């Protein structure tokens, strides 16, 4: 660490109703980034070189999860940042926003139980050739919590073929030993997809919450590698 001024600046965008923003800010700081809260009405990203769209219930999830946030003024800057190849991590509600603004394909349905689910899940790392996932091994199994009602990812077969062909599935729900199994899929997501990357590989959306697993005392450190990947890509 060469002084506070040189730390990579990571924007955590705060929407009305975001509730994982504080956790994301703390997680970024924990791995050595400079966490910068950016208000949803901001026209720019305050000089940040990476972005987190945090979890929560932006606009109460009224209308549809992430739908209103997609129209916030800050999203213009987020889009531009992503188009320039800048790293973006959308967590839970943030993933739902990335679908709404079209940075990632598909849509979220209600969980197949039609209920909010909060529990630990296991995730198989499908891509580790990208900076965002560079701290992980391919096939590695992570244990992270999910907390959502609308995490049942769905896409048209044409879209699904593209997702397959271009390797956009980054994380899949799996058993503790890494096998794909319907019983290990908590919400019914198509192809057990828990996390997606865009074709360029700089935008990652995921339903589980890495920012909640940064310390052993809080149940594990499996989230730290993902947050570190983002900070280092900044």
């Amino acid at each position: 660490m060469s002084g506070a001024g040189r730390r990579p600046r990571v924007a955590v965008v705060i929407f009305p109703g975001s509730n994982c923003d504080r956790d994301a800010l703390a997680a970024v700081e924990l791995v050595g980034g400079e966490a910068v809260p950016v208000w949803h009405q901001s026209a720019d990203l305050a000089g940040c070189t990476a972005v987190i769209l945090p979890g929560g219930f932006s606009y109460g999830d009224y209308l549809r999860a992430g739908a209103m946030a997609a129209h916030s003024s800050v999203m213009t800057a987020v889009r531009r940042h992503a188009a320039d190849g800048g790293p973006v991590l959308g967590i839970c509600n943030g993933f739902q926003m990335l679908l709404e603004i079209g940075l990632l394909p598909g849509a979220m349905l209600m969980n197949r139980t039609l209920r909010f689910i909060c529990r630990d899940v296991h995730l198989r790392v499908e891509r580790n050739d990208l900076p965002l996932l560079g701290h992980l091994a391919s096939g590695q199994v992570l244990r992270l919590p999910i907390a959502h009602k609308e995490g049942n990812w769905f896409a048209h077969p044409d879209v699904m073929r593209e997702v397959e062909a271009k390797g956009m599935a980054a994380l899949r729900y799996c058993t503790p030993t890494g096998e794909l199994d319907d019983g290990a899929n908590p919400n019914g997501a198509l192809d057990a997809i828990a996390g997606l990357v865009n074709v360029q590989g700089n935008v990652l959306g995921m339903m589980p919450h890495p920012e909640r697993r940064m310390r052993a005392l809080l149940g594990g450190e499996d989230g730290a590698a993902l947050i570190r990947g983002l900070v280092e890509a900044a």
Partner: protein
Amino acid sequence: MKWDAPATVELAREHGLSQKEYERILSDLGRVPNLTELGIFAALWSEHCSYKSSRIHLKKFPMRGPRVVQGPGENAGVVDLGQGWVTVFKMESHNHPSFIEPYQGAATGVGGILRDVFTMGARPVMLLDSLRFGALDASRMTHLVDGVVRGIGDYGNCVGVPTVGGEVDFHPSYNGNILVNAMCVGVARADGIFYGRASGPGNRVVYLGSKTGRDGIHGATMASDVFDESASAKRPTVQVGDPFTEKLLIECCLELMGDGLVVGIQDMGAAGLTSSAFEMAARAGCGLTLDLSKVPARERGMTPYELMLSESQERMVLVVTPDNVAPVLDVCGRWGLDAIEIGTVIPESEVVASFDGRQAFRLPLAPLVDEAPRYERPWVPPVPAAAVTLPKLHDRDWEADLRELLASPVFASSRPIWQQYDQSVGASTVVGPGADAALQLVEGTNIGLAATTDCNALACSLDPFNGAAQAVAEAVRNLACVGAEPIGVTDCLNFGSPENPGIMGQFVAAVDGLAEACRAFEVPVVSGNVSFYNETSGTAIQPTPTVGMVGVVPEVRCRPRSHWQVGDAIYLLGPLEGELGGSRYLQIVLGLEAGPVPGVDYEAERRSAAVARELVRLGLAAAKDLSDGGLAVAAVEMSAGTVGCKLTLPSGVSPVRALFGEWRGGFLLTAPVPLEPALERACHGLPLTRLGIAGGTKLVVAHGRKTVLEVPVAELAALGEKGLGWLYEA
């Protein structure tokens, strides 16, 4: 009827006031009140707001202590955590609304308790819920369970406060009156606490939050009446919650307080603008003027009566210096919240309201708040349930008995409930639901903040005094299981009608029991709530004095475990035999709700809890307290349905008392074999028995040389998973 029509004794009666109370109003005012004034009297003199039947008894609680910053009387209690931090907490009931409309009733119960905590300047960090339902096959009961769980979940999940604990129980006495008690725990810097006081004449009154609608009018008076078959007709008195607005309110209010922009602040809870205006003025020894025409209304044509008594949710009253009004409105505007100046603080002890340019009411504070009626209701001391002659309990099929216990809804796994709650938002949860107590880290520190809710209502119905005292003891043990030392209590006292001397006797005995136990454990009561009239068509609930207890771990060094691991040595700290009176074994297996419920052995409980707490803090042992279902159920819980054990009970003990006896105040302790000497040293001088070793896949219990239990733990755990599993499909 027009809002300014003169009141009559009939109208007073319709508002739940007695003839005597109405006569007192006439003499206090020296005139006939108008309808709006009558509504205000009825709300503030309701049992719910005035505590008129309970107040004289609640004085018996210990309320002071070296850590107490603020005791009862404010929106929530405040207790010191050390290192410049304090915790703010309270528990409150939302029973009646939840029975009428479970989803909104439970949701707004959570919303209300959150506001009581953040209005003090604290960030809410934990929610817990103590729930009581009737028999699952009773009318509407699965609908009620499902609605309450969804209501709690949707509200807490959206505002982003983790739900980390609580309890649920089932008994036919709740068939017509379920209980929803919500507890919120917050944290604040010690110098960042705010109070609900309208002080400083000339200061302005600012209304913040949702617009006022016609929902919830008479909520407080409804909560102060018994139910009958027409309960569903009261649905319009249930409020509707908007957790998104609540989340904005939390952030907005914490910002306003953090920037020092408010003088006083309170939410509009029961009795809405009425209670916040009168209580804030009374606490400060000042008065208020209000211009009701300025109150943001959801629909046109709302009258002063409705504006004063609406219980629309997510609304706050702020008191602000004149210079700070503009900056306050700026901050509120940035959070997208409506805020408007509606009045001024005055030196006179009265509230004067205008509407459409003329006076709507003018009421003195004293008769409404400090001099509100107090009753010493007649009461009959309860007779504690005696022992009954039990059948022979020697050579029974213990496995069948254990299976029967575990298959009861009382022992059903609550996972299907809490899996619908966000338990880890805030990234501070060390131990979440499903354990003995919840444990969190205070933001940016390693201070552990623990909380639990406890009440064995079966025991309280048999012996209100001992049952209530036992609830306190159980809470102390539960906190010890996560290494926490108790520092404060909030209570939620749920009873039937106080006008029934028998019920009032239960209440008095339970308060005495709580007071004795809190004194013995040196844990002050800093906030609480009384809910009377929990009865339907003459049938009262089991007395349910719920204890919410908060504890502290000065420095969390390791994560407490609640399960044993293969190879762990298993010890019982405490007596080998418990008592069967008031036990779940008698209730569920033998169908007997019979006493006696023993009193608490405070000295033994204090010593064993202190040792268990220390062992857990140091990571030397995992602890589980022995309570409902005794040793057998504790062992099944510690197995987590995966790792079995082999335990041996000395041949001299009674197997039924050893396996299923309760009230012994002990712990199951487990530790890896190399740590056994340390564990034994720590327990020196206390009753400690090494029962066996964890391992295998079966729960094996020998009585002397005879094996009395041998069951796969997975099968036992599966029995518990079934009980509430239907919630996933409902």
